[in-house]
């Protein structure tokens, strides 16, 4: 076992465990915190795969922005109580069944598909530095990129509108 594999295994274990914990913890605050750890471990995976830019963006966006939003919302709603009633047994059973099913089916699909060649090519070309990514984004994917910005703008306006208290309400 190489060091890298060990690191991968540890990271994977953290990812899965925290993801589970995030779902199982009864207190939403705890969930959010576990999720933050989960996202950090995923950032670790990115680093492992040598995509530093994405790792950083990931930390900023998910752990930084999204999870903060979550936490704010939870606190805003005052949900840090463990007052959630469990779903009926049948629903839980359904959840477990679908969890198992989708897991098994997807894994089976991958196993059944053509085996991946053991050799991994390495071109040696730089393909994931910030510089390259920037060029790709702004050349080939310029239009989607701009659309993404419009999307974010619209989302922002939408959010503001949605969270504003309606004045016409009695």
């Amino acid at each position: 076992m190489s060091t890298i594999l060990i690191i991968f295994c540890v990271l994977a274990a953290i990812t899965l465990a925290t993801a589970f914990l995030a779902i199982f913890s009864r207190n939403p605050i705890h969930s959010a915190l576990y999720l933050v750890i989960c996202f950090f471990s995923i950032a670790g995976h990115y680093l492992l795969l040598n995509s530093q830019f994405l790792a950083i963006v990931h930390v900023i966006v998910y752990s930084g922005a999204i999870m903060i939003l979550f936490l704010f919302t939870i606190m805003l709603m005052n949900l840090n109580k463990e007052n959630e009633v469990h779903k009926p047994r049948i629903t839980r059973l359904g959840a477990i069944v679908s969890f198992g099913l989708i897991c098994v089916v997807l894994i089976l699909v991958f196993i059944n598909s053509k085996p991946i060649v053991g050799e991994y090519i390495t071109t040696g070309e730089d393909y994931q530095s910030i510089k390259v990514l920037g060029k790709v984004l702004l050349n080939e994917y310029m239009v989607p990129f701009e659309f993404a910005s419009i999307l974010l703008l619209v989302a922002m306006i939408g959010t503001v509108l949605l969270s504003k208290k309606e004045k016409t309400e009695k």
Partner: protein
Amino acid sequence: MNNILNEIGIENYIFLSVILFSIGVFGVLYRRNAIIVFMSIEIMLNAVNLLFVAFSTYHQDAQGQVFVFFSMAVAAAEVAVGLAILVSIFRNLGSIDINNLKNLKG
């Protein structure tokens, strides 16, 4: 430069992301709290993102990473709007238990 996948193997990433995705599905089905459901969705998105990156390395191509970038943008927007909706639902109903949100019932 040594390809990292030589050491780990893309299969492992696939399994990891499948399991992560399934956990996300499980969370959506299992929990009633809308916030947690949202979190589960984020987990699923991340599982996919991880796979994108892994395959990006596998193909030695930037395309996958660009997709991750876009999916992050969409995820950010989605979370922002989604949480805003949740907030307004909470304001109106006083609860975000998705079992109470059955206005779609036929």
